[in-house]
């Protein structure tokens, strides 16, 4: 029962990962691609992490996984911001 729940969470996370990477490949420009990426980063990893937390018995490791998820959320927001900002500045220089 609990295993089923974990598998369900992980596979719904996978859906977001796969759609994120397909979006990265198919969307027309950098900014929309970054938008697709954020889905994989935030929701995808959150669901996978949830599934792994359900499966992992040790509480210490569960806390670690939550920290990992929070870090990835923060890092993904800041990285997207930096990459987009960099792209904008470079384009302005080229004009």
């Amino acid at each position, binding site marked *: 029962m609990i295993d089923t729940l974990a598998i369900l969470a992980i596979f719904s996370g996978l859906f977001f990962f*796969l759609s994120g990477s397909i979006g990265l490949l198919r969307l027309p420009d950098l900014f929309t691609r970054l938008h697709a990426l954020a889905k994989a980063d935030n929701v995808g990893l959150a669901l996978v992490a949830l599934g792994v937390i359900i499966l992992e018995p040790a509480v210490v490791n569960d806390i670690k996984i939550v920290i990992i998820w929070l870090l990835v959320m923060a890092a993904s927001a800041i990285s997207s911001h930096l990459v987009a900002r960099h792209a904008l500045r470079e384009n302005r220089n080229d004009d």
Partner: protein
Amino acid sequence: MMTGGASTSILTIALLIALNLLLLSLLIGLFRAWLGPSVEDRFSAILLIGTGGVAILLILAILLQITALYDVALVLALLAVVGTVALTQSESNHD
């Protein structure tokens, strides 16, 4: 490897399928790194590999029963941003 009855082997198979799909999503994302066209596009693919790598490490930790892999995922999540910062800060030297 994992102790338990029939349900754990189903769980193992499900986790392995998830692992393969995650790697597939990295593969799709890497096409963006290959295609480009701009450095930012390539870097957005690296961001995806960072997050996908964290997810893969979490699932590998459950599958291989190595808890240290949570530490690896933690380190990867912590340092994911350093590469991006290096890219955006060290470049644009043409003035």
